[in-house]
């Protein structure tokens, strides 16, 4: 298995002068294709910051980030957008669905930006919604869906493009424990059956149990890195 993500001494600081705050203080990390990683750590330890950098939404202040061997920190805004478009699926902390838009349209959105035809978009979106157990809910708008259903639409949107890497920032943060376990099963099967590399932030230890590897952050650094299950080679 080859390395999908490589962090070499990644730092990230916010603000200037007195107000300067270092969110990441030299992170070294290597995540291989096919892995299922849970990221844990106290609030403010730099989990979301790392996810944003991995997700090419943000750029590091220092260090090197290689995605598939490509130096992301050297890419411009548009090149990073194209990387997101073609390789990444993002499940955001607060769903982030388009309001007053149907589930189907939400899921079709990334396919639209990929330039898929209307027919392919519709099929892929329906499939993805089916996968997250929302078959038949295609034409409901976000406002007509429960929190759990919205979270599943967000996941459907992230996987409809069959991304190489799925990033999920606290995907179960707003859900009850039963819904949370359903989501975890879903991520697990995506990882197992479709070979999608999954990187997920969570606060709950029993959610982290689903992962193959758990990385603990503290004060902008990796504190602990444990492997729960071996990667199938």
């Amino acid at each position, binding site marked *: 298995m080859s390395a999908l993500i490589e962090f070499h001494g990644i730092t990230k600081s916010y603000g200037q002068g007195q107000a300067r705050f270092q969110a990441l203080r030299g992170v070294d990390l290597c995540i291989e294709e096919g892995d299922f990683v849970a990221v844990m750590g106290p609030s403010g330890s730099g989990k979301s910051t790392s996810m944003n950098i991995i*997700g090419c939404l943000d750029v590091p202040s220092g260090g090197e980030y290689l995605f598939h061997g490509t130096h992301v920190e050297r890419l411009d805004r548009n090149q990073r*957008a194209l990387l997101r478009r073609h390789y990444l699926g993002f499940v955001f902390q607060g769903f*982030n669905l*388009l309001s007053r*838009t149907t589930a189907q349209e939400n899921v079709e*959105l990334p396919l639209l930006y990929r*330039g898929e035809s209307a027919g392919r978009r519709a099929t892929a979106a329906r499939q993805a919604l089916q996968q997250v157990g929302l078959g038949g809910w295609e034409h409901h708008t976000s406002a007509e869906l429960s929190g759990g259903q919205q979270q599943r639409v967000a996941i459907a949107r992230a996987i409809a493009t069959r991304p190489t890497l799925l990033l999920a920032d606290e995907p179960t943060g707003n859900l009850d424990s039963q819904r949370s376990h359903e989501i975890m099963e879903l991520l697990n099967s995506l990882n197992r059956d479709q070979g999608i590399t999954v990187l997920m932030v969570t606060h709950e230890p029993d959610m982290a149990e689903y992962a193959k590897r758990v990385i603990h952050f503290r004060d902008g650094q990796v504190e602990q890195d444990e492997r729960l299950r071996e990667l199938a080679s």
Partner: protein
Amino acid sequence: MMFWNSLLLALREIRRNLLRSFLTILGIVIGVGAVITMVTLGNGATQAIKDQVSSLGSNLLQVRPGQRMFGPGGGGAPQFKLEDVKAIRQQISGLAAVAPQVSRNATVVAGTNNWSTSVTGSNLDYFTAGNWALAEGRLFTPEEENAGQTVCVLGATIQKELYGSSSPLGENLRVKNFSCQVIGVLKAKGQSGMGRDQDDSVIMPLRAVQRRLLGSRDISNIQISVANADNISRVQEQLTTLLRERRRLGPGADDNFNVLDTRQIADALSGTTQVLTMLLGAVASVSLLVGGIGIMNIMLVSVTERTREIGIRLAIGALEREVLLQFLIEAVMLAALGGLIGIILATGASVLLAKLMQVPFTFNPTINLLSFVFSAGIGILFGYMPAKRAARLDPIEALRHE
């Protein structure tokens, strides 16, 4: 591909906010509507004036005593005599018609009906110069004309008012203290440029009117039709020279008559309405500009309001220029839609108002196309700034936005 996607997204967004979209474009609708209506009506008015002046006759020169161009001729200036008319005929070439005229308002009576009208005395050339055609009957013969017999040709209005649907031919029409025989009726021409009904007149041989109504041999007005339009200014000059000579005006003296080209009146009048049209159009364009600013305002609000949406699009992989294009297309489509609705409303309003104002309605493709393109241009102009602002957003910041 990217264009169609952006178009699709923009369309969805407009449909989702139908009421707001409509309010946004209201300014453009009103602006375009006002511009087109103003210009169309103004052009109609200009056209109406041109039509009416040309219906007076073609290549016409009016010779009147006195210096003023309009108003009753003369003041103290001497009137013309028949000898002047003869001299003009003999000494100036290229004339299609020379019609000396006198008129006088009089009440005419037929049976129990009476009607106040103007009685004009002239010769056969009067009908040539004024482009008059007969509806029925005949014109006077040269003998009747020379003898000044009391025969008359009626304008269409007189026929209608005094005889209704029956034919007046051969009837006797009483004019003041004498009666004359009706020998013909003219085809109707309608209102003239100054709001006068040209068909409201009785025409008799010049001598008859001079003798019976005026008691003098004066001629108050000579109407001259020039055969070839190119010769008008030459004829005008020759007329002036000739008449100055005949009236014995020294080199330093002002003309005590005037020679007027009806085309000049037409040009002067239509020039005025054209200036007015442009002025009104310009005022209306300001409202179009205000409409454009309205679009910019709404688009800016929309960008702020939709910051999170833009963040989502960017995070999902939308390129900067795709977001830019989406917002720009949205603005342009809104503006163009406003332009289109404005054109439709303006066309309806113009047709209606043209009818009310009795001016001809002509669909002017240039001004319609121009307004449409201009409104779309306003969309680009005022949509660009908000669109650029949307596209420049930082995805993480945008996603954080509540």
